[in-house]
């Protein structure tokens, strides 16, 4: 069961995070934390013509929270806001065990489904996505 949680792909994102860093302004920035375990994630993104043109994350925390953020940056860059919102909903559904991940849509993110067997870790995997969701609220009505 441990192998489903700590899949190679997750550990790889943890050790070699993609999209870690910062953006120059103009950007939207949002930060979130998991006070119980101390995971912290900040997401910075730029939206141009209704698309996420660039996204970075920073923060600290466990392998799952950091790998999830790393995967997020790869997955959302270039997507329209609508596509991103759909993806977020699909990730939540997957983490809650409400739906099986569709590898076509999810790609590597599907690996995060392993947390379903570890209820206390679901929050770690979802943190970055919550931060992204909140960040997108700032977009509403502005650049879209």
């Amino acid at each position, binding site marked *: *069961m*441990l192998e489903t*949680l*700590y899949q190679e792909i997750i*550990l790889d994102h943890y*050790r070699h995070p993609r999209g870690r860093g910062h953006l120059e302004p103009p950007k939207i920035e949002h930060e979130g934390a998991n006070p*119980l*375990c*101390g*995971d912290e994630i900040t997401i910075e993104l730029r939206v141009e013509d209704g698309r996420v043109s660039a996204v970075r994350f920073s923060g*600290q*925390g*466990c*392998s*799952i929270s950091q790998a999830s953020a790393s995967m997020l940056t790869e997955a959302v860059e270039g997507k329209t806001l609508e596509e991103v919102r759909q993806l977020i909903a699909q990730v939540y559904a997957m983490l809650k065990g409400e739906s099986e991940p569709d590898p076509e849509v999810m790609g590597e993110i599907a690996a995060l489904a392993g947390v379903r067997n*570890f209820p*206390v*870790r679901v929050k*770690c995997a979802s943190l970055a996505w919550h931060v992204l969701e909140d960040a997108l609220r700032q977009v509403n009505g502005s650049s879209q």
Partner: protein
Amino acid sequence: MGQTGLSIQKRHPIGYYFLSQTKSLGVTIMKALQSVIEAYQIRRQFPYFQPHPEMRSLIYLDNAATTQKPYAVIEAVSHFWAYHNANVHRGAYGVGAKASEMYESARARVAQFLNASNPNEIVFTRGTTESINLVAYSWGMSQIREGDEIIVSEMEHHANLIPWLQVAQAKGARLVVWRITDDGRLNLDDLRNLLSERTRLVAITHISNVLGTVNPVQAICEMAHFAGALCLVDAAQSIAHMPVDVQAIGCDFLAFSGHKTYGPTGIGVLYARYELLQSIPPFLTGGGMIRSVDWDGAQWADPPAKFEAGTPPIGEAIGLHAALDFIDTIGREAIEAYEHELTQYTLQRLQEVPGLRLYGPQPDRAGIFAFTLEDIHPHDIATVLDNFDIAIRSGHHCAHPLGDRLGVPSTARASIGIYNDTEHIDALIEALHKVRKVFGYA
């Protein structure tokens, strides 16, 4: 009281084996073997460690967070709910009188356990946190003045920190921090420099819930008194692991929780010198704590009733009584000696794990082991251990300032209780090697 503990301990095999001073290898092995047998006998007194369809068999190493409950405690509580339930200090009927008697008998038992001179020095609360808040609001808010100083150590749990921050802020007083040494101890010379005529209180933990440091509370109280200050001891982590005698310590206030004492949640104790309880205003007000009341005001009941507004946790107090009986049947000196041996064994074995960094002093310390492993996040360590059926804690352990001092926001923490043995520690070490492997360090 200490007397009782000692005579029971002499009869009890744990005392025999672990109090022996012999150091040869054969004896060490004998001791380890004996520890496994003894701890097994103790685990048999806990349903938590018996096979059950709802239970997964677990090596429980999170005793600093809460301890498991023996049958004796669970039965005492359920017996009370089943056959003696009534509110206390109210009903004229017999059952009510019996409930009151059981509740007051629990108070007397706590007084005896702490060697307090008078059961009326024992106030029942919901736990350590509430006990300390009681002192902060009743004593602190009424006695602390602008410019006064309250000394707290850098290793305090938030429960013995935030209430004092609140008092200091409200009263314009200063919170003075007694810093720890690099190896996680408190230096009495440093305290000497911090104490002054402005000091009103030294609030100190008996055992650190992160570092396992056992603080010399007796000397600390003496120094506080010499400076004209009072001393509060947070005994949450010591009470179930060593003899705690309020008269020997000389503290003015002492707090602990039932649930870290093999007893129920929702019950805690504040010990305070009787004159103090008499002189300070109540904390919560309402039923059960007044002598008389009219539209012009109220007269408070005598302590401890003055501090027990509302219906108290009656069944929980009775459960605590049973828990203290359980502890004394084993003997606190015997428990201390046993856990000391197991602690030494654990320290030695933890050294075998490459990349493991243990916080706190060595070798003199209590059985609480906060550590980091390579740069693996403590949350990940705990998850992997959980997968091998070992329960430990990860996080900041409600001591943020200490985490800042140590330079680690979070650590993994294993903590032992009377039912743990060397096999549990062996399993922990083996699993830590597996953690390394999962994260590519082996």
